[in-house]
């Protein structure tokens, strides 16, 4: 990882406007699909400006939680407030979303990045070559994006989302099924973004990964919030049986 180059490039990734979105409050938020409660009366508040990790077993509603935050899904009832306002921001694209399964355009690697410029129309351009270099994809820049390996696709997906210059970055299991090298690249980027003041909400199943990157952890189970603690408390003092079962590999 070329950290010095990365940091220089980061300056350009900085949000165009610094918008304080904290605290992010879920107020009695529910999502019901076909009479099935996916999220059930969630009440929580995210206050820390670091990395918040969402954990929980399969079907807990972690990805849905993230998609509701991003506006991809609309809750059945309840609401989210951002810094006590109903709207995160009037400006578009203050959030970026990295999907578990990368959604890449049927274009070359570089064209996937160019697309963001054409859609967003930012005047201050980011050096795409440098971004590609950071995630070790410079050699593949003219290859069709869908011919990349899963790890490469996910790295491309991450840097493409950074072209939005987000204030809030939502990542839905971005390292699931990736090899340790690809995982490390993504984690390094996330930690660097955190240092820049970008709020990160990260879904993962990986306990070791949560230990490495989390500052606070929200634990969901069956659409309900079980715990919201800082990392140290979560791993050493959680009173919840569900959390203990999860950490012990039973849940």
């Amino acid at each position, binding site marked *: 990882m070329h950290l010095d180059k990365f940091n220089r490039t980061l300056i350009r990734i900085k949000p165009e406007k610094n918008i304080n979105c904290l605290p992010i409050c879920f107020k009695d938020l529910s999502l019901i699909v076909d009479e099935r409660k996916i999220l059930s009366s969630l009440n929580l508040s995210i206050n820390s400006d670091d990395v918040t990790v969402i954990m929980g077993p399969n079907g807990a509603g972690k990805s849905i939680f993230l998609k509701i935050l991003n506006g991809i899904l609309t809750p059945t009832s309840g609401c989210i407030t951002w810094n006590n306002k109903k709207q995160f921001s009037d400006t*578009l694209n203050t959030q970026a979303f990295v*999907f578990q399964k990368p959604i890449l355009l049927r274009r070359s690697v570089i064209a996937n990045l160019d697309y963001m410029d054409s859609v967003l129309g930012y005047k201050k351009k980011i050096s795409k070559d440098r971004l590609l270099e950071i995630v070790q994809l410079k050699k593949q820049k003219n290859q069709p994006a869908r011919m990349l390996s899963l790890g490469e696709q996910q790295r491309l997906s991450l840097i493409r989302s950074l072209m939005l210059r987000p204030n809030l970055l939502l990542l839905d299991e971005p390292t699931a099924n990736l090899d340790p090298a690809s995982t490390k690249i993504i984690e390094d980027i996330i930690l660097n973004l955190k240092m820049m003041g970008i709020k990160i909400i990260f879904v993962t199943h990986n306990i070791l990964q949560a230990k490495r990157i989390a500052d606070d952890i929200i634990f969901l189970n069956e659409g309900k919030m079980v715990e919201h603690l800082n990392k140290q408390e979560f791993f050493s003092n959680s009173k919840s049986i569900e959390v203990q079962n999860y950490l012990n590999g039973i849940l």
Partner: protein
Amino acid sequence: MIEFVEAFRLAFNLIITLDANILEIVLLSLKVSLVALIVACLVGFSLGSILAVSKFYGRGIVLIIINSFMALPPVVVGLAVYMLLSKSGMFGWMNILYTPSAMIIAQSIIITPIVLALSRQVIEDLNNEYSEFFKSLKISKLQIIKTLIWDARYTLITVALAGFGRGIAEVGAVIIVGGNINHFTRVMTTSIALETSMGNLPFALALGIILLLISVLINSLVMAFNLTTKKYAFG
């Protein structure tokens, strides 16, 4: 048997020597079908993409109607266009019955539902794949449509070629609205029908061979596009 062999020999001779009559008929056929295709693509791709990204009450019924129009009988289209363009018809004042323009209108009506229905399906499938990405970007419908059309371009070219194939091979509608007038509205399919009935087999055969070659060319292009799509994982 010897007669047929001789007919083939004469037919190839007509093609090789670029017979003026044959050339005139082939060029008119290509012109009519290409213009009809352009009209069909403009209407079909625009409406197809709008339909692909829109949700509205009664959408299912609209899709059923459009899909049914893919199987429109050409002679019925020919009859309808004839009635509209004849002197006592709604558009009789245009005086275009028995002209290439009337043939273009008839072919456009036949090809458009094909291009529209197929392009709608292609674009909708792609939109389903991209939709969460678009939602996360919060971009406009127009930007979404532009992206989808560009990314589906290889498949859409295949759709257009299928429409062209249908247009150029069509005989029922163009003979009704074109009238098969020599040196004016005579195209390959109508000429083949006429010359065969008149016993001029070499001429009909020459046109038939060219029509087949065009069909082979179109299919080769479709295959080439499909292979390109797969090769570059755009598909």
